[in-house]
């Protein structure tokens, strides 16, 4: 999968590049066609796919390039989501968030919300990552899962921001020159971030950090023997990964105009893992393909049966047992 990722970008128009372009254009075409057909609901679905893909791009940095199976990324998704929700609700009510030692108020300006959401998620990833990376393998999976659950129960039992019931924000936060309540315009923001994150992820994969990170996945002993601490590299990637997922969380709050502990639940962590794997782990556009498929399945199967997750489970099982490599593996070949 990955010898290609660190090499200089291919000069020829590779099969993977064509699949990537088709996916980008396809995701862009859905809302445009939906608006033309007078089906704004499909715009919302496409926006959801773009935001989940963004969260997946974040997870893929840790999972795909670093080999870190994090079952707690919902914590970062939720941290970003709650940062956005709390800031926006205070921004609307005018009540300050804290009054001591200095007064900090809320805001409904996305340009102010995003940095806070990213910083909150990054800080969370730094703490959780530093503790979890003391271990490896199956321990790491269980511990990230447990820390995700800790964040979940904290928000459930913390009454200030709605506790179990969640926190409505009623209207989307503002962005200069954009009507964020218009579905297509909000989609454009989410899509823009997704493209930016993909570009960033591509740069990182080919960078010094990317080289060290992919080496850490393959052989930690060797990485240490050439003078690079595997834990530092993995922690750096984990923080970047959490930050991107947190940004997606902030957008998700604005999409739904609501944030609740469900964003932090272990199912959310599982779904993020599933969409990255379904798409193709360690492939740049894997999360995009996975998120589009996931949303399509949820919508189509959900229309057929209330128990659609049963079929999702059966499909996932088949993919894991018999069709490794995910969608990108099937479309663009095992080595891209």
């Amino acid at each position: 999968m990955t010898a290609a990722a660190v090499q200089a970008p291919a000069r020829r128009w590779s099969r993977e590049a064509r699949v990537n372009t088709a996916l980008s254009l396809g995701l862009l075409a859905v809302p445009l066609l939906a608006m033309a057909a007078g089906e704004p609901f499909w715009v919302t679905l496409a926006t959801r796919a773009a935001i989940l893909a963004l969260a997946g791009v974040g997870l893929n940095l840790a999972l795909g390039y670093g080999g870190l199976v994090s079952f707690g990324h919902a914590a970062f998704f939720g941290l970003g989501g709650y940062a956005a929700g709390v800031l926006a609700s205070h921004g609307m009510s005018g009540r300050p968030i804290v009054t001591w030692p200095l007064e900090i108020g809320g805001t409904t300006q996305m340009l102010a919300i995003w940095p806070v959401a990213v910083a909150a998620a990054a800080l969370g990833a730094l703490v959780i990552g530093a503790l979890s990376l003391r271990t490896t393998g199956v321990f790491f999976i269980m511990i990230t899962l447990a820390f995700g659950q800790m964040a979940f129960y904290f928000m459930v039992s913390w009454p200030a921001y709605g506790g179990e019931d969640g926190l409505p924000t009623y209207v989307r936060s503002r962005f200069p020159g954009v009507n964020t309540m218009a579905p297509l315009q909000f989609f454009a923001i989410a899509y823009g971030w997704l493209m930016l994150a993909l570009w960033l992820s591509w740069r990182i994969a080919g960078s010094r950090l990317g080289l060290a990170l992919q080496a850490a996945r393959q052989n930690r002993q060797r990485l240490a023997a050439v003078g690079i601490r595997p834990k530092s590299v993995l922690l750096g990637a984990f923080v970047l990964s959490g930050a991107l997922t947190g940004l997606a969380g902030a957008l998700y709050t604005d999409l739904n105009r609501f944030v609740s502990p469900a964003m932090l639940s272990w199912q959310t962590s599982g779904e993020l893992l599933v969409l990255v794997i379904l798409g193709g782990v360690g492939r740049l556009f894997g999360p995009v393909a996975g998120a589009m498929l996931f949303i399509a399945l949820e919508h189509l199967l959900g229309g057929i049966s209330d128990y659609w997750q049963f079929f999702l489970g059966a499909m996932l099982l088949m993919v894991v047992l018999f069709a490794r490599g995910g969608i990108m593996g099937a479309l663009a070949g095992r080595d891209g």
Partner: protein
Amino acid sequence: MSLLLLIEQVLNGVQFGLMLFLMAAGLTLVFGVMGLINLAHGSLYMVGAFACAAVAAATGSFWLGLAAALGAAAAAGALVEVVVIRRLYNRDHLDQVLATFALILMFSEGTRWAFGSFPLYLDVPAVLAGSVTLPGGIVYPEFRLALIGVGLAVAAVLFWLIGRTRIGVRIRAGEADREMIAALGVDIGRLYTVVFALGAALAGLAGALVGTVQSVQVGMGEPVLILAFVVIVIGGIGSIRGALLGSLLVGLTDTLGRVLLPQAFALAMEASAANAVGSALASMSIYILMAAVLVWRPGGLFGAPA
């Protein structure tokens, strides 16, 4: 807070811990022997609870329900092992996580389809429906006391099974060296199925017993599963002793934290704020315990140093 209330909460914590031990023992055996991380262990807990509730409702006998719980969970475990799990032993942990996550989705939705989304309730069997007065004048429900007894009995049987019997020797040998034990003529495939079904039966037992105290519903297994992971992380993977100690630590920390922390904060701040801070902190207490153990001993209390 009175001493009597505190002792009652300690008993509750021990009871909760021992039920966690039933879950954690199966998980840690399966991981220790087969190297498999099984997220669907919580589903087997749920299967046990539903089997108990359905049979108890149909026959009117809790005891038949309990037998059905053990049988159904063991059968479901054996079936899943033969159809899916054994294809995963040689896969990496990511594949194991995904495949068993898929099993959770299938078990949960299948159960929802069969039983609906509303919780079922189990009646405590008549012989254990009363309360006993313990020395010191503590009045404690008989059924909860019975749960403590069952937990301790299972722990004793497991220690004996692993430490003193032929199958225990095989389990420990399988843990040490898969090829070696296979070369010695033990049917490793059957051994694995048996171990997996044993773990499943323990999970089913826990599900039926806890389901009687609480309620039986879809999704009941996963929160317990994650707590069992915390237990294993604290105790050390593969160690039954570690699972027992970790379970009791987690059970006591969680139960006592919920009672004591809000009261402790109430000494320093006004009641509603104290309750908020206290309960939020209490919900995090076992994870803080886990983090502390990790910093101190990354391999868990009884694990090999990681």
